[in-house]
C-alpha cells in the first residue's frame, strides 16, 4: 500500500476545481447577521465528508456574547441538523471567531451564522457547496515513513512465524533441532508468499478506492457553445449537453433565476484576455440557451456559465468557442448584457476611464496582494469632475467583479456579498419543510423575482446579504468593496461592472498576485 503512496507522491499534483467559480473553492461572504455586520470565510476541505473551517469576523465594534454556526443540508427530507456549534474566539483577535463545519454529504449547505449580543441576535445564511474537488497527494516524508514501517511490519511478521515454529513450543533452554529449523524456514517462506499476496491485495484495494474517488470528483455539467448567424446577427448558443442533465430522470434539481437570469454567461478572450462579455442567454428549453453576441473581435474565447439549482447548488460550466465571423450590429437579447474590448491598464495604474467619461479607481494601496490574504478590492467611481457618483443597482447589486487568471485556472464572479450566489442564499432562507417536490420552491422564487423588479444594493433581505431581494430598494453606495482572497499566485485580470445613468460600465484592471509568503 505504501508503494501506491510513493506513486501518488510522484504523481504529486493536487488538482483543483471548484463548484461555483473555477479554481477558487473557498466561500467568502459579507453581510449582516441581524444587527451585526459580519464577514464569513469558509475554507473548503476539498473532500466529502470533510471538515470545513469557518471564520466569522465582526465588522463593527459591538458587544457579542457568542457566535453559533450550523450547516444545514438543502434537502429537508434528510437535513435534520444537530444543535449548532459555538465558534471559538480566535486568541489575540477580539472580533474573529472560528469553528469547524462537518459537511458529511455532497451538495449544497446553508450555513447559519448566528450572532448573539447586547442588541439581540441575528442570523446570516451562507450557501456553501460541499463537493470533492481535489485529490490529495501523499507527501514524500509520510510516504517514506509508511513504506519503512510496512517493510518493518512485513519482515517482522515473517520473523514471528519463524520464531513461533522454531522455538515457541520448546521447553525452556532446549535448543531447536535441525528439523524444527527446517520447518521454520518453510513456514517463513509460506508466510512471505501469503503476506506478499495480502500486500498486493491491499494495494489493489487502495487503487480501487482511489479510482472510485477520482471518478467521484466534482466536475461541472458539460456544456457546448456554438455560433450561428441570424439575419446578420451572431447568436451564441449554449447547450448543457451533459448526459446527467439531459437524462429525463436526472438527479439534478431545476435551475432557478439568479439576479433574474437563469444563466450568467461570461466570455473571456483566451490568452490575451483582451475581450470580455457578460451575457444572459434566454432559455429555449431546459438544455439550450441563446444570446445575441456582441461585436467581439474574432478569436478563441473561454466561456464560463454560472447557474444555480433549486437545491441551492451553484456551479460554473466551462466551455470554449471560436469566433471567426465579423460582428455586425448588436441588439442585446437582454438589457443587462454588456461587453468590453479593453485590454487592461498595466501602464496607467489604478485609475481607468469608463465608457461615459467617468473614472473608476482601485483603492488597492501599495502593499503587494498575496494568496489567501484579504485582497483590497475597493473601487470608487467618480464623474469627469472627480466627484464620487452614486451608482445604480445592476442586477440587484451595487457592482459585479469578475476576475480571471491569465491561464484560465481561476475564474470568479464576485459581488459585494462575496462569492456566494444570491439565489442560493434565497433557497435556504425561503425553503419550507414541505418543499420536497422539485420545482415548488423554484416557482416561488421565480414569482418573487418577477415581483420584486430591479432593486438597489444595500443591507436587507432574508439572507442577510447586501442587496438581497426582499429588502427595500436603496441607493447603491459610491464605493464598492468585494470580500475575497486570491487562491493562487499569478497574473490576473479584473472586470468591475457598475451601472450609472442606465448604462453598464466596465472597468478593467490587471494585478500580479504573489505567493502567500
Amino acid at each position, binding site marked *: 500500500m505504501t508503494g501506491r503512496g510513493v506513486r501518488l507522491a510522484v504523481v504529486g499534483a493536487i488538482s483543483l476545481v471548484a463548484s461555483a467559480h473555477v479554481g477558487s473553492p473557498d466561500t467568502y461572504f459579507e453581510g449582516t447577521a441581524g444587527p451585526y455586520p459580519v464577514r464569513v470565510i469558509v475554507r473548503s476541505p476539498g473532500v466529502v465528508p470533510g471538515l470545513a473551517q469557518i471564520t466569522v469576523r465582526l465588522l463593527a465594534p459591538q458587544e457579542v456574547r457568542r457566535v453559533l454556526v450550523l450547516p444545514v443540508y438543502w434537502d429537508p427530507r434528510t437535513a435534520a*441538523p444537530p444543535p449548532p456549534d459555538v465558534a471559538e474566539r480566535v486568541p489575540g483577535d477580539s472580533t474573529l471567531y472560528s469553528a469547524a463545519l*462537518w459537511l458529511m454529504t455532497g451538495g449544497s449547505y446553508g450555513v447559519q451564522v448566528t450572532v448573539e449580543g447586547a442588541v439581540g441576535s441575528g442570523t446570516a445564511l451562507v450557501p456553501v457547496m460541499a463537493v470533492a474537488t481535489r485529490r490529495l497527494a501523499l507527501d514524500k516524508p509520510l510516504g517514506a515513513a509508511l513504506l519503512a514501517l510496512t517493510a518493518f511490519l512485513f519482515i517482522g511478521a515473517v520473523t514471528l512465524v519463524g520464531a513461533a515454529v522454531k522455538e515457541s513450543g520448546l521447553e525452556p533452554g532446549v535448543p531447536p533441532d535441525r528439523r524444527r529449523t527446517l520447518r521454520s524456514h518453510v513456514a517463513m517462506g509460506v508466510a512471505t508468499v501469503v503476506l506478499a499476496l495480502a500486500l498486493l491485495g491491499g494495494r489493489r484495494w487502495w487503487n480501487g478506492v482511489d479510482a472510485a474517488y477520482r471518478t467521484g470528483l466534482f466536475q461541472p455539467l458539460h456544456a457546448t457553445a456554438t455560433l450561428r448567424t441570424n439575419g446578420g446577427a451572431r447568436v451564441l448558443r449554449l447547450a448543457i449537453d451533459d448526459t446527467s442533465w439531459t437524462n429525463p430522470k436526472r438527479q439534478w434539481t431545476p435551475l432557478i433565476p439568479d439576479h433574474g437570469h437563469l444563466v450568467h454567461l461570461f466570455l473571456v478572450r483566451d490568452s490575451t484576455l483582451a475581450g470580455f462579455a457578460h451575457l444572459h442567454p434566454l432559455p429555449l428549453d431546459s438544455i439550450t440557451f441563446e444570446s445575441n453576441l456582441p461585436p467581439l473581435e474574432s478569436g478563441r474565447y473561454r466561456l464560463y456559465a454560472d447557474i444555480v439549482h433549486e437545491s441551492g447548488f451553484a456551479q460554473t460550466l466551462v466551455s470554449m468557442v471560436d469566433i471567426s465571423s465579423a460582428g455586425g450590429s448588436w441588439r442585446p437579447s437582454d438589457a443587462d448584457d454588456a461587453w468590453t474590448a479593453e485590454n487592461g491598464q498595466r501602464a496607467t495604474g489604478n485609475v481607468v476611464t469608463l465608457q461615459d467619461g467617468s473614472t473608476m479607481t482601485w483603492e488597492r494601496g501599495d502593499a503587494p496582494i498575496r494568496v489567501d490574504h484579504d485582497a483590497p478590492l475597493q473601487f470608487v467611481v467618480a464623474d469627469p469632475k472627480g466627484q464620487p457618483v452614486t451608482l445604480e443597482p445592476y442586477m440587484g447589486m451595487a457592482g459585479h467583479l469578475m476576475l480571471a487568471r491569465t491561464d484560465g485556472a481561476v475564474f470568479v464572479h464576485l459581488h459585494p456579498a462575496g462569492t456566494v450566489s444570491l439565489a442560493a442564499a434565497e433557497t435556504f432562507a425561503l425553503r419550507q419543510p414541505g418543499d420536497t417536490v422539485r420545482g415548488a420552491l423554484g416557482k416561488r422564487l421565480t414569482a418573487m423575482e418577477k415581483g420584486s423588479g430591479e432593486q438597489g444594493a444595500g443591507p436587507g433581505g432574508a439572507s442577510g446579504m447586501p442587496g438581497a431581494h426582499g429588502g427595500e430598494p436603496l441607493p447603491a453606495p459610491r464605493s464598492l468593496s468585494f470580500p475575497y482572497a486570491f487562491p493562487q499566485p499569478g497574473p490576473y485580470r479584473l472586470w468591475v461592472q457598475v451601472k450609472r445613468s442606465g448604462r453598464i460600465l466596465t472597468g478593467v484592471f490587471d494585478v500580479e498576485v504573489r505567493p502567500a509568503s
Partner: protein
Amino acid sequence: MTTTALPAARAAGRAAALPWYVAAALVAATSAKVGVIWDISWHRSIGRDTFWTPAHMAIYLGGVLAGLACGSLVLKTTFAGTPEDRGASVRFWGFRGPLGVWMSIWGAFAMITSAPFDNWWHNAYGLDVKVLSPPHVLLALGIWAIQLGALFLVLSLQNRDPAEEPPRLYGLLAAYMIAILLQNVATIGIEQVGFANLAHNAVYYKVAAGGVPFLLVAAGRGIRLRWPTTTAAACYMAFSLVLIWILQLAPATPKLAPVFNPVTHLIPPPFPLLLVIPAVAIDLVMRRMGRNRDWRLSVLLGVAFLATFFVTQWFFTEFLLGPHARNYFFGVDQWDYSSRLGPWRYRFWRADTNPVTPTALAIAAILAVASARIGLWWGNWMARLRR
C-alpha cells in the same frame, strides 16, 4: 483435559505469579477492546469525533502500553536476563523475548503506523466514508496482535508450570483473553450477528458458525480449566454486559446530521450472544471424546455448537425483541441517532428474503465443523506453547 480429575481445592491452594509485563499486556489488550466498543458507541450516539476522543485514547493506550512493556522486557531479557529468562524466550533479530511479547510489539507498531495513515486517508478520501479501509484494517491487525500476544504470554506461563495442575489464575486469564477475541468477532460481525433482529435469517447462523467455534474449541483444547470453553464464553458475556451497563450511564448528544433519533446517552453494544450454552455443550463433548480423534471430534463439536446455538438464539432473541427486555439490564431497543425509529425495531430482519432453511443450516453446520477443526489445530498448538 488433564485437569478434570483433579480437585479444585488443590489447584486453588497454589499461589500464581503474574509477571508485570503479562499484567501490562492484559491491561493493554483490555484497553484496546474497551476503546473499540466505546468508539463504536460514540459513533452511534454522537457521530462526530477527533483523534483525541477518550475512546481513541483507550485504543492507542493499549498499543503504547503493550509496546513499552514488551519492549522493555525484550531489552531486559536480551542484555540483563537470567539464563531462565533467556531460556524461556525466542530469538528475534538477535534480541530475545517470549513469543507473546513479539506479537505485542508487532501489534503496537501496526497500530502506530495506522494512525498517520488513517489521518491521511481521512484527508484524502473523506472522513470514514467506509469503516472498512486499509488503515482501519491495519489498526485492527495491530489490536488483534496485542491481544494474541497477551494470550500467548498467559498460555506460556500455564504450559511451563511444572505442576500437573497449574494455578487456576493462568487458565482464567487465558479464558478472559479468548473472551476478548470473541468480542472481536462480535465487533466485526455486528451487521450479521450483532442485533437480535437478525437471528431469524440464514446469514446469522452461517456467520456465527464460521466465526465462533474456532475460538471456543481452541479454548477447550488449550486452556487448563475444568470448564475452559464455558469460562471463556461467560467472560465474553460478562465483558459485554459490563460495557452495556456502563455506557448507558454516559450522557451524549448527537452532533452530526441527520439526527432522526435524539439520543441522550451513549448507545450500548447489542446484548451478547448466549454463548455459554453452546460452550457447555462443547466442554461436555470434548471431555467425553478426549484427544486423538480430532476429525471426528470436530464434526461432533460443529454440530453440537450449531444445534445449541440455533435453539438458544432463535428463542432468546424473540425475548430480546419483546417488551420485557427493554430495560437497563438488557440494554436493547437503543438505536443510532441517525435511525428513523419505526416498527422495524421489533421485527426480525430479512427473515423472508434470507430464511433459515434446512439447506442453510446444513451449510452452517459445515462451516461450524470446519471452524471447530481449525480451533482444534490452533488449540493443540496453544497447548504446546512454552515460550
